[in-house]
């Protein structure tokens, strides 16, 4: 670290999060600072603009209670960085990487800038290989691949916390038993009780010791919220690309992050775009979600399974919309399934894993897995259409074939999507083939004759 310089009595103005300094040492754009008021509280900040006379500091924590007089600014001489070591696993941090579990400080092996530089696409290794989550709607129909970024689009009050904890506790790499698997879990804008829920359930499930837990609470400042995913991802990159672990990152709730971004942007007087969010929301989210993947020559990988709640369950809201444009698919939860007691309430039709083809089939899962998934989708889409029809003309108005699809849709949700505990992949697969057996074989055009013969076990032409 470069020597730290100090500026006292240099503050000449304060406007929202912006602190103006004059007559200070020279500083580079983006350099980190610590702003200490007379109250002794240390606030992180960074250089947002610089001219010859004046520095503009963006304070990254609340500036309430900060006077001009007596405020001291300490310059780091480098952008914000996080000191990391293998000891971060099993530890709990606040949103800006300070240990809050009462344990000793983490022995630092490396300092990494929290805004991690973009990966060179040439250095990326396209993600491959299947991660088993134990959730059929994911494993069978929207498979998660090592190095993928696959978010969960949820809604307020839906059981995404439980899903996150279950996945964190059960996720495994079936073909690489014994390889190092680690979790980075970042709670963003959490209420106290959810923070406690995550900590205690991860501890109970035994996952805490392979987890680095970051907790930014709803009571922490919004500016700090913007740093939390960056600290967490810097830790994850360290574990993956320095320590060589397969890291699963769970960021929850990214909606709180976006709300904080909107608030900070408007306090800076920026021109708002859709729904008051800044026009750069897409690029900003990309700097977070793109920090996932595999690197050539690196042993470890970084997979992101982040959670966001769709405001008013609206998937066209800018937060899920822009996220969907960046991530490699999405798992969508639905309120009506939840209401009907289906857990996990995964709405399969709008869900998608784009990398599925790279981590399923062949050696990864089962050679006929992709065809099965495609056929289940086609059939369930038809069932959903039939449901709409039935709601208008009534079940009596349906043809015999349509009634079979109606029943299939019901079975699909109640027997395949719904599950109590984690399911092994083989079990999910068998269940999928069994469900198709209830449909007219002639309709199963996404399956080859061989697949039909071997798995669905019905002579072609049976209706």
């Amino acid at each position: 670290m470069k020597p730290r310089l100090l500026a006292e009595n240099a503050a000449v103005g304060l406007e929202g999060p912006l602190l103006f300094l004059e007559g200070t040492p020279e500083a580079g754009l983006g350099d980190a600072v610590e702003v200490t008021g007379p109250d002794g509280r240390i606030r992180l900040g960074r250089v947002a603009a610089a001219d010859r006379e004046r520095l503009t500091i963006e304070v990254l924590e609340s500036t309430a209670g900060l006077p001009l007089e007596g405020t001291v600014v300490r310059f780091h001489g480098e952008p914000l960085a996080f000191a990391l070591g293998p000891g971060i696993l099993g530890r709990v941090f606040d949103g800006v990487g300070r240990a809050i579990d009462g344990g000793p400080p983490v022995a630092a092996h490396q300092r990494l800038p929290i805004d991690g530089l973009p990966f060179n696409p040439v250095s990326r290794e396209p993600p491959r290989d299947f991660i088993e989550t134990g959730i059929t709607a994911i494993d069978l129909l929207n498979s998660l691949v090592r190095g993928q970024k696959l978010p969960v689009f949820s809604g307020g009050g839906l059981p995404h916390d439980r899903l996150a904890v279950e996945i964190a506790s059960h996720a495994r790499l079936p073909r690489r038993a014994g390889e190092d698997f680690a979790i980075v879990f970042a709670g963003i804008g959490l209420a106290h009780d959810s923070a406690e829920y995550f900590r205690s359930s991860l501890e109970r499930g035994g996952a805490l010791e392979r987890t680095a837990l970051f907790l930014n609470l709803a009571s922490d400042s919004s500016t700090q919220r913007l740093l939390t995913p960056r600290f967490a991802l810097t830790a994850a990159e360290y574990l993956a690309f320095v320590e060589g672990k397969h890291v699963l990152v769970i960021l929850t709730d990214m909606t709180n992050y976006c709300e904080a971004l909107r608030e900070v942007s408007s306090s800076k007087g920026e021109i708002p775009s859709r729904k008051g969010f800044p026009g750069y929301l897409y690029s900003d989210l990309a700097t977070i979600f793109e920090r996932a993947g595999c690197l050539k020559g690196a042993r470890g990988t970084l997979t992101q399974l982040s959670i966001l709640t769709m405001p008013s369950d609206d998937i066209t809201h800018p937060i899920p919309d822009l996220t969907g444009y960046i991530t490699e698919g999405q798992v969508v939860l639905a309120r009506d399934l939840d209401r009907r007691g289906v857990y996990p309430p995964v709405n399969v039709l709008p869900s998608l894993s784009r990398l599925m083809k790279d981590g399923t089939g062949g050696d990864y899962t089962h050679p006929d897995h992709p065809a099965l998934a495609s056929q289940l989708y086609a059939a369930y889409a038809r069932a959903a259409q039939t449901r709409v029809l039935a709601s208008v003309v009534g079940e009596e108005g349906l043809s015999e074939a349509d009634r079979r699809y109606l029943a299939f849709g019901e079975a699909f949700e109640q027997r395949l999507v719904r599950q109590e505990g984690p399911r092994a992949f083989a079990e999910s697969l068998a269940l999928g083939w069994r469900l198709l057996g209830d449909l007219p074989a002639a309709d199963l055009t996404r399956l080859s004759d061989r697949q039909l013969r071997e798995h669905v076990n019905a002579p072609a032409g049976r209706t």
Partner: protein
Amino acid sequence: MSRAIAVKLAGPVLRARAEGPFQLRESVRVGPARLLGEVVRLDRDEIVVQVYEDTTGLRPGIEVVGDGAPLAIRVGPALLGRIFDGLLRPLSGAPDRLAAGLREAPATRFPFAPAAAPGDAMAAGASIGDIVVAGGRRLAALVPPGVEGRVLDIRPEGEYDDDEPLARIATAGGEVAVAMSHAWPVRVPRPSRRRLASVTPLVTGQRILDSLFPVALGGKAAIPGGFGTGKTVLLETLAKGCAADVIVYLGCGERGNEMAGVLEEFPRLDDPRTGRPLMERTVIIANTSNMPVAAREASIYCAITVAEYFRDMGLDVALMADSTSRWAEALREVSGRFGELPGEGGYPAYLASRIADFYERAARVETLGGRTGSVTVMGAISPPSGDFSEPVTSHTKRFVRSYWALDAKRAQARFYPAVHPLQSYAEDASAFAPWWSERGNPNWLALRRRFLTLLDEQSRLERMARIIGKDALPARQQVTLLCADLVNEAFLRQSAFAPKDRLASPAKQAAMMAVAGRFVELAEGALARGIAPARIAGLACLRPLARMGEDTGEDELARLDELRADLESAFADLEPEEAGA
């Protein structure tokens, strides 16, 4: 070169006190790392510079040096088979994590064989000789636009650096050295002698495009679609299979993994036309979503300039831009930073004219050197909330002639490509009837019309069925639904991942179109004979028909004749039942 000293920095914008003359849009180098930037405003003795790279760490007092010319790239033989960032700097050889200040491409050596001799008159766009690139392919060493005169001397056959002077030409304005590569300002379209009408489609290998919504060689197509509807997969499939000599693939504000995927896949796939690795005909330009936004705005111009350069050699070039929305958003962000008045959707008022300028650079032309070449542009659009009424989609729609609208419903049912047959169109379609006729499909236009009408009726009937129930529809309408289903399932569905079906030759398309068309005729004939729709729907030959695309390889097209024969006999065997059935 003029110099300036930075006095104020904020984000990617800086102000500097000029110590010499600068021009608007001049390209500049900033600070010790020589970051690329562009002068966007002149203000008395100060210049305002938009920096294309991450400005972290810059401080007041650093030096800004002008290039004396607008932002330009070097076009030459070293482009093929490689990947570049949005400012055309090579990414291979760059570090794993990209810091600002990437190096420009180092010189590469190529064999050169002169085709001109001292004393020869050379017009702009003429070739001074052949360059041999990977795979033994020969490219022209072009005299740059604007240069014209007699050859003073020219180097003998041999291997040279691509930026090394090979010939000196005496022009009215003095001596000019010509190398294999030359610089060209990206925002200026490369000139040609004249634009040519296009009577040929660009064969894409996608049935729903070639057979229903073709794009002309030198044409322009837009692919709007919400997230996950298949824009990228479609563009990549086109890049792999379309009948172009050179592919320029622009990843504009999209995912790093997609670029990595292309880089991994293309060298291993064969160019369907030459059998050489696909990568050898491809230039990739990538400004992924986490790379600096300002460079994203410039990347689209770099890409089209590269495309025009290969066009000028008399080649057919296809440019895939994924996604033009990210470019428009970059434009919006840059404009907002300079306090320009935002218009519709926050975009600057000149959005429409910028989109028009870009697509105008697509054309089939007679080049300055007298060859025929083309640039076909295919641009993805990512409308917010999948709503096609937003500014980028609606403006683009005015400037393109082929419009391939992707449909979320189809994508959700995993029906690919999810091109919506009713919302899409191709304005040039009827011009291609003779072309199809020469390729064994004399009925193309009629069949195309028949299929489109069927699909149109289907959507109307489905709405009606939703009210009265499918079984309550009259028999003729039930047959219409059946036929429309078959056109969808058997003809239009084509997975990009089906080994035998990811690309379909015009011959396969023609044969499949004929089989599907014959089914429609036979079904209607059977209906007229009093056969109940349910019995047509129950025919055993429907399943192989629905799978004929994925089950029939290019070397098994005879199978389609068998299918057709089965179809004939199955219908012939259908006997009308006694009344009431």
